[in-house]
C-alpha cells in the first residue's frame, strides 16, 4: 500500500512539474521545475529497484546537466526585455500553429495509452517475473557493463571527449586567439 501511494505521488509530481516546465515564460523557472521532475523520477527508479540509476540521475542530470543549463540561462540573461512578438504572449495562446502542435501531442498520448492497454501481458505486476537477485546491485551492474558492454562503454568515453572539445570550440569567441 505505501508502494502505490509513492508511485502515484511521485509520478503526479513528475508529470505536473514537466507540464509546468513547458508552460513557463521564464527559463530559470523551467530549469528549476525540471530539476524537481528529475527528483521525482529518481524516486520512481528507487521504487523499481534501481538505486544506482536513481543516484546517477541525481548526480548527472540534476547535479551536472541542469547546472550547465542554469549557467547558460544566466549567461545569456534570458528572457530578454526586447523579446520577439512570439515570446511576449503566452505560448498556449499562439494562433493555429501552436494549437495544431498541442493537438498532435495530445493525440500521441491517446495513441500510446490505447496501445498499452491492448497488450494484456502488461497487466502483470512489475517484479512478478523477477527473481530475488535482481535488486540492481552495483556489483552486478559493473560486471555486466565491463564484460558484455565494454565496447559501448569505451565508445561513450570517446563520445564525451568529442563533445567536450566540440563544446569548447563552438562557444569560443570569433577572432580571438584562445
Amino acid at each position, binding site marked *: 500500500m505505501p508502494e502505490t501511494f509513492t508511485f502515484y505521488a511521485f509520478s503526479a509530481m513528475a508529470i505536473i512539474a514537466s507540464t509546468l516546465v*513547458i508552460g513557463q515564460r521564464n527559463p530559470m523557472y523551467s530549469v528549476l521545475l525540471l530539476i524537481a521532475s528529475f527528483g521525482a523520477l529518481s524516486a520512481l527508479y528507487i521504487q523499481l529497484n534501481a538505486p544506482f540509476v536513481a543516484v546517477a540521475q541525481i548526480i548527472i542530470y540534476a547535479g551536472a546537466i541542469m547546472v550547465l543549463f542554469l549557467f547558460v540561462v544566466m549567461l545569456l540573461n534570458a528572457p530578454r526585455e526586447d523579446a520577439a512578438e512570439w515570446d511576449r504572449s503566452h505560448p498556449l495562446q499562439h494562433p493555429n500553429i501552436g494549437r495544431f502542435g498541442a493537438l*498532435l*501531442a495530445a493525440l500521441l498520448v491517446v495513441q500510446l495509452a490505447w496501445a498499452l492497454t491492448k497488450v494484456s501481458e502488461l497487466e502483470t505486476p512489475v517484479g512478478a517475473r*523477477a527473481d530475488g537477485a535482481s535488486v540492481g546491485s552495483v556489483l552486478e*551492474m559493473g560486471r555486466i557493463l565491463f564484460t558484455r558492454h565494454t565496447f559501448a562503454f569505451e565508445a561513450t568515453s570517446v563520445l564525451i571527449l*568529442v563533445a567536450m572539445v566540440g563544446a569548447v570550440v563552438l562557444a569560443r569567441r570569433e577572432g580571438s586567439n584562445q
Partner: protein
Amino acid sequence: MIPLSYYLIVSAVLFAIGTAGVFLRRNLITILLSIEIMLNAVNLSFVAFGRYAGDLDGQIITFFVMTVAAAEAAVGLALIIALFRHRESLNPDAFTSLKW
C-alpha cells in the same frame, strides 16, 4: 504491486509533454529542456522493462542514455551560445535566413 503498464503510461505522458514542448515553445533553451524530458521518459520505460524482465540490461542502457544526453546537452548549449552571439535572440524564428 504496480502493473508495468502504469509505468509505461507515465513514460508515455512525459514523452508527449516533451514533444509538446518542442512544438509549442519559441525559446531555444526551453526546446532543449523538452528534449531532456523526452530522454528521461525513455529512461523510465527502460528501467521499468528491465525490472519486468528480471535482469539488469534496462539499467545498463539507461546509463548510456544519460551519458549521451549529457554530451548532447553540452554541445547543444554551446551551439545556442554561438547562435546567440550572432543574432542576439533565442527565438528559433529569428534564424530563418541561411546567410550568416
